[in-house]
Each structure stands twice: as structure tokens, then as C-alpha cells.
């Protein structure tokens, strides 16, 4: 499936191509004719006078499909909206969807296929850290561009990746500060699933609790992914009586964890629990009644009350049904295509090097989460919100931080 479309040459007179000021001024009504393919695509990407091809690489099947579906939908929604507005540099976005099938070698294979065979201008995709780690060398080798939506552990910064979710410190520090102040908390119990993201997050949380808040970590436990028996853990919690339970349990384990807590009488009424791993998507599986009163720390909640978000939620529900819910990662997925569009238009080119060079400093005032700005380290400045769970599986937003600078390699936390 090699495309030879990029060989179609544009008219020769391209006088206007190098006037950046003009491009920005007219950025709402960009015409493809102003941007001949030969000038906006010097690296042989799959771009014609009327279309630009991008890839989408998530798990549509396998164990991760349930989590990644939200990102797939949000990215597709953003692309539809951009196309309805006239596309990017006057070109309609054409998507090649690929299924990573929850299998990391498959992710690497498909990433290579998208970059080498399909010559896509960018890829929106991946969800788990493992899948990102698997495709990263491919993107770096083939000089592709990936928009990655999930909040993750940090400790990474690639010139070929734009991270639209939070790195760990953005999600952890402000939340701990808030809970320590609000609840005068001194003792913390850290609980997580056993892989790199919860482990790194717990490490950062511990350092912050011990060094900055003067508190104490009274317990730290990790469980294999898919673990469902939390009886002994609950006994330990009852014994240690921590002021705060800090939970980083992911996936299916979440459901048993919160149900068993409730069955053991540990509820939002008598216990402070804050988690960085439960979004509206997980709440759907856990059930709002098992979460009532507990807190989540995220940059986005579906219930955010601002004009951008109301429009986003409305459009999302119109496309995917009234019952669909939107979690943090889904919103971060939605940002990807918009950030890419902004970067391409600022660069006046689809070339990956020019797009990444134009990315730092980009602002998005239309983001559902409010306002975001791209840092030179390829992560987003973002706010942190604390939400308290209600029975309907939505949160009441109690706190909103100032914009937090992304810092994937935090000093003093490693």
C-alpha cells in the first residue's frame, strides 16, 4: 500500500509560501491552494492537494480495548470537527486506523507500517506505557510524530512524542498538598498495582509526603495487575488507621478493591481516600455507589463547568450516545488532533521536524479542560482538579490548582 500521491506536484509559483505572518492572520480560512503540496511536504508524507493522511493506533481488541475506546472516539470526534472546519492547511484529514490488539509487538509492527508504508503525517495513539515504550524506538528511527494521551509516569521525553496527558508530578503533588491541608493529614497508606506507573507515582508521593509535607507513609503495597483479593490489605488498613489512603490501583482490580472496601465498612463517610487512577470510565465499572465520598485527582472531569467543556460533552454525546462518559484520558486524546493542527498551521508545513519545532509554546484556549500550553519538553501545562465522587458516577469538583509546569524528570523525586 505504498502511496505515490506525494509525488503530485503543485503549481510552481509559490510566492506566498514563506510569509508566516500572513498564514497566522488567515489561519481560519486556509486554502490548500495557498500551500502547494511540494512546499508543505518535503519529506514524502502521504499528502495530496486535498487530503492529509494520519494514523490512529490503539487497541480496538483485547484487554485494553475497553480503556482505549474513549481515546479512539475522542480523536475521531476532533478530526471530524477539524474536517468540518475546512481541515488542516486546506486539506481534509484521512485516518488510517490500526489495531494494536493490546499486544506490544503488534503495536511496534503497526507503528512501523503507518510510518514506513503509509507515510502518515502523524499518529494519534497508544495508551499503556508498555505500548508507548514498544513504539518509541520506531518513531525515533523513522522520525514519526506521536500524540500520546495517557497520564503516565514521566521519566521520558522524546522529540517524536507529544504527551497530552499529565506526567506523574502534575497529578500527584498538588493533590497531596490539598488533601494534607484540607484534612490535616499526617499519615498516608500507598496502594498500587505492580508496574512502572504506580511504582513511580508512589515513589514521588512518598518523597513529597516525607520531605515536603512532613508526613509519614505508614504502609506501601503493590499488587499484581488483575489482583482481586484485598482482604488482608483491608485488615492492615484498619490496623494502621492512616489519615489518607492513596490508591493507584488500575484496571479490573479497581472493581474488587472498592467493592471490598465498602463491604468492610471503609467508605467516603469515615475515610479519606484519594486516587489518581479512577476516571469516569473506571467509575462506570466500579459503580458510583462504591465510590461515593472518595476523591480523584485529575486534570479533567466530565462535570467541569465551562463553555468549552459543555460544547465538547454535547458533541461527544451527540456522536456516541447519551450514555457515554468522558474520562481524563479521553479528553487528552481529544487535544491531540487540535494541537497537531495548531502546530502544522504555525509551521506552515507537515514536515515532522517543522511541526515539532513549532510545537513549544502553542496554546489551546478551546480545550475542554480550559487552557493548555505546550512546554518545550513536549508535555502540557495543565491544572489539577480534585473531584469528589457522587452516586451517579460523576464528581463534584472541589478544587482547581493554578497551571502546573510539566517536569518529567523531577529533581528531588527520583
Amino acid at each position, binding site marked *: 500500500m*505504498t502511496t505515490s500521491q506525494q509525488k503530485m506536484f503543485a503549481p510552481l509559483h509559490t510566492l506566498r509560501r514563506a510569509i508566516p505572518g500572513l498564514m497566522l492572520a488567515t489561519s481560519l480560512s486556509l486554502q490548500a491552494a495557498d500551500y502547494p503540496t511540494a512546499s508543505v511536504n518535503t519529506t514524502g508524507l502521504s499528502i495530496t492537494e486535498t487530503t492529509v493522511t494520519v494514523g490512529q493506533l490503539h487497541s*480496538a*481488541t483485547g484487554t485494553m480495548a475497553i480503556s482505549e475506546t474513549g481515546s479512539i472516539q475522542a480523536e475521531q470526534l476532533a478530526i471530524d470537527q477539524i474536517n468540518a472546519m475546512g481541515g488542516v492547511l486546506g486539506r481534509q484529514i484521512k485516518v488510517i*486506523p*490500526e*489495531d494494536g*490488539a493490546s*499486544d*506490544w*509487538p*503488534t503495536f*511496534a*509492527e*503497526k507503528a*512501523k*507500517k503507518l510510518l*514506513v*508504508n503509509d507515510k502518515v503525517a502523524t499518529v494519534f495513539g497508544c495508551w*499503556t*506505557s*508498555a505500548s508507548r*515504550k*514498544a513504539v*518509541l*524506538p*520506531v518513531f525515533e*528511527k523513522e522520525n514519526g510524530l506521536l500524540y500520546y494521551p495517557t497520564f503516565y*509516569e514521566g*521519566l521520558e521525553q522524546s522529540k517524536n512524542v507529544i504527551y497530552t496527558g499529565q506526567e506523574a508530578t502534575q497529578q500527584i503533588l498538588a493533590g497531596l498538598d490539598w488533601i494534607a491541608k484540607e484534612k490535616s493529614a499526617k499519615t498516608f497508606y500507598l496502594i498500587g498495582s*505492580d*508496574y*512502572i506507573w504506580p*511504582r*513511580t507515582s508512589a*515513589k514521588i508521593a512518598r518523597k513529597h509526603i516525607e520531605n515536603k509535607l512532613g508526613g509519614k507513609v505508614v504502609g506501601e503495597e503493590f499488587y*499484581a*495487575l488483575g489482583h482481586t483479593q484485598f482482604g488482608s490489605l483491608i485488615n492492615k488498613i484498619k490496623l494502621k488507621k492512616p489519615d489518607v489512603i492513596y490508591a493507584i490501583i488500575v484496571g479490573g482490580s479497581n472493581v474488587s478493591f472498592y467493592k471490598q472496601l465498602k463491604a468492610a465498612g471503609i467508605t467516603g463517610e469515615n475515610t479519606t481516600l484519594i486516587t489518581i487512577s479512577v476516571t469516569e470510565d473506571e467509575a462506570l465499572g466500579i459503580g458510583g455507589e462504591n465510590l461515593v465520598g472518595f476523591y480523584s485527582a485529575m486534570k479533567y472531569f466530565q462535570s467541569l463547568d465551562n463553555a468549552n467543556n459543555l460544547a465538547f460533552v454535547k458533541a461527544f454525546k451527540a456522536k456516541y450516545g447519551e450514555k457515554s462518559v468522558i474520562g481524563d484520558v479521553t479528553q487528552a486524546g481529544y487535544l491531540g488532533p487540535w494541537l497537531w493542527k495548531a502546530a502544522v498551521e504555525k509551521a506552515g508545513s507537515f514536515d515532522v521536524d517543522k511541526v515539532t519545532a513549532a510545537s513549544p509554546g502553542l496554546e489551546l484556549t478551546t480545550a475542554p479542560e480550559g487552557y493548555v500550553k505546550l512546554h518545550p519538553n513536549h508535555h502540557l501545562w495543565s491544572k489539577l482538579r480534585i473531584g469528589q465522587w457522587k452516586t451517579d458516577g460523576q464528581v463534584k469538583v472541589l478544587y482547581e490548582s493554578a497551571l502546573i509546569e510539566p517536569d518529567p*524528570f523531577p529533581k528531588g523525586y*527520583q
Partner: protein
Amino acid sequence: MKTLFDRVFGGKHGLTSLAVLALILLAILPLSLDIFRLNLVGKYLTYAFVGVGLVLLWGKAGVLSLGQGVFFGLGGYCMAMFLKLEASDPISTKIQSTPGIPDFMDWNQLKALPAFWEPFHSFPFASAAVLVVPALLAFVIGLAMFKRRVGGVYFAVITQAVALIVSLAIDGNQGYTGGRNGITDLRTLLGHDIRSQQAQYVLYFTTCVLLIGVILLLQWMLSGKMGKILLAMRDREDRVRFSGYDVSAYKVFIFSLAAALSGIGGALFVLQVGFISPSLVGIVPSIEMVIFTAVGGKLSLYGAVYGALLVNTGKSLFSENFPQLWLFMMGGLFIAVVVLFPNGVAGIWQNLTDKTSRWFAARRKAPATAPAVEVNVPVSLETETSKTP
């Protein structure tokens, strides 16, 4: 008495199979595919190493293992450890708090390289480990199982448990193994960039040549006494035992050999794909590898290669063209093969060649008087359908 030539190449029939495979792998595919697709074929062929091991184990000796992914993975990890150490020189890891150790160790607050990683600085050691580590584990499991005469379904279940245990053990010790993410971002082998096109060609041809070499070696082995005993064991284990042969010793040997072959496949996989993770060690890949073998035909060494190629090509093409439907199509393919062609692709081939040769034989005999006496004597043990699971 068969000559060495006959034993290695399997006579005229075997020579044709070999020529066809060599033609496809060494000429047709490299000439018709771009490097991206060829690299994928190279990846599929690494599964064929597990496949030929399974033919030996399951088809010939009647021992079904649902844990071959473990040995594939261990071979892969041995190679990945060497490559990761080569990629983690102090200069390229200088932003870490402890430069010179693999990045995931640094993230897990390890301050020094664990002792069991040390020998993997040496390429000869790592290469030997690719064979020895899987074989050793198989030897231990095999000794424990076969000496106690555990077989059939029980053995299959135990190997599956082993697959789960090993993948969980790798997953749970992320400071030492890279955990769920696995060992990623492997760049060079002895200074040569393994991600370059040229290296991918070299690795592809290396894989082909090794695979063909392994097949010839196994043909030689199976054409001797070993092959007869394995088949006899499969069909009437007790009679072999009563004849004075140590059945368990043969089984342990075959199991270890299949494991070592899987290890080679794993190492070549890592070189071509550039990473390894516990998802390649667990139950699902182990069962998938059995499916490749079933599709190819569990009695045929060549069939295992075609099975791995066919299933994985199907997987890639179906999932590229029908992202929503591809799993159903794969399921359909498996069911169709098992129902219609119980001996897999190799069975179809066998049927065809049998029919044509019978047809030729019939024509030659036609002038003679004896009309419809089916002369179907040869039926070597090989072509008989196995009754074992």
C-alpha cells in the same frame, strides 16, 4: 541402509520440500517484498522455530506443551539483556542517577547492576545462554514430570501453569527484568545498528538459513532410531517401555531440544523486533504457537514453517484491512483448518502429492489387467494421523 544424504534431506520427496521452501524464503519473498514486509516475515519465521520444536514434541513424540512461549521468551530475554547492556553505556545514560545501568533499573532505584546481569556483557555467554537457559528449565521440568510419568492433558496443564508463573515472575520483578514494559529500546549488536535496513536484510537471511539448518538437522535425527522410538512412544508408550527403552529420558531430551530451538527463535525475534516483554512469555502466545503448528500440520517440519507464516500473515493483513472484524476472520481460519484439514497445510500438500502419484501409478498400471485393487501399502508411520491429543 539410508545414506547420510538421504537422512538429512529426506530423499527425493524431502528434497522437493526443501527446494520449495528455500525458493520461497530466499528468492521469492526477498525479491517481491519491501524491507518492512520482509522484516515482518523474518519475525514470523522466529515463531517457526517454536513450531518445528512443537512438531517434534507434539506431532512426533505425542507430548503437547502449552508453555513453549516460556522458552521463546527466555531465549529472547537472554539476547535482550546483552543488547540492553550494550545500549546502556555510561555516556548515553548520563542523565540517569546511576549512569551505566539499564534505564528501567534506574527508574526502580537500583544503584548497581544485579549480579546475574553481569555475565551478559559477554556476547558468547549471551549466545550460549539463549540455548542453555531454556533447555535447562525444560530439563528440570521434564525430569520432574516425565520421570513420574505425567503426560497428556496433565502435562499440558502444568506447562501452561509454568507459562503463567514465569510471565508473572518477570512482570513482578521490574527492577531486574523491566516488568510489564519489558526490555525496550535495543539499538546495536556488537556495534552494528540492528534497526538499519541493511541489518534487517542480514537478520532475515540469518533467520532463514538457521531455520533451514534446524529442519535438516531434525530430519537427520528423526530418520534414525530416535525417530522410530518417538513415533512408537507416541502410539504405544507402554510397549516401548516394556521393550527396555527409557521413555522418560527420550521425552526429557526432546522437550529440552524443543526448548532450545524456541530459545533461538526468541533471540532472533528480539534482534528483529527490537524489544521483549512478558506478554511474549505468557499463556496466550504459548497457545498461539500451538495454533501455528496445528494450522501448518503437526506432523510436518515444513508445515510448521508454513503455519507460522500463514497465520501471522493473516493476522497482519486482516487486522490492517478489517480493524473491526479481523479476530472473527482469524477464528474462522482456525476452525476451517481444523475441521476441513486436520493435518493442516502439510496435510493438504500430502493429499495432493499422494493423489497425483496414485494417479500416475494408476495410469502406468492401466494397461495391465488388475483393475481396482488399491495398492496403498507405503503408509509410513509419518502419514498416519496421530491419535494423541
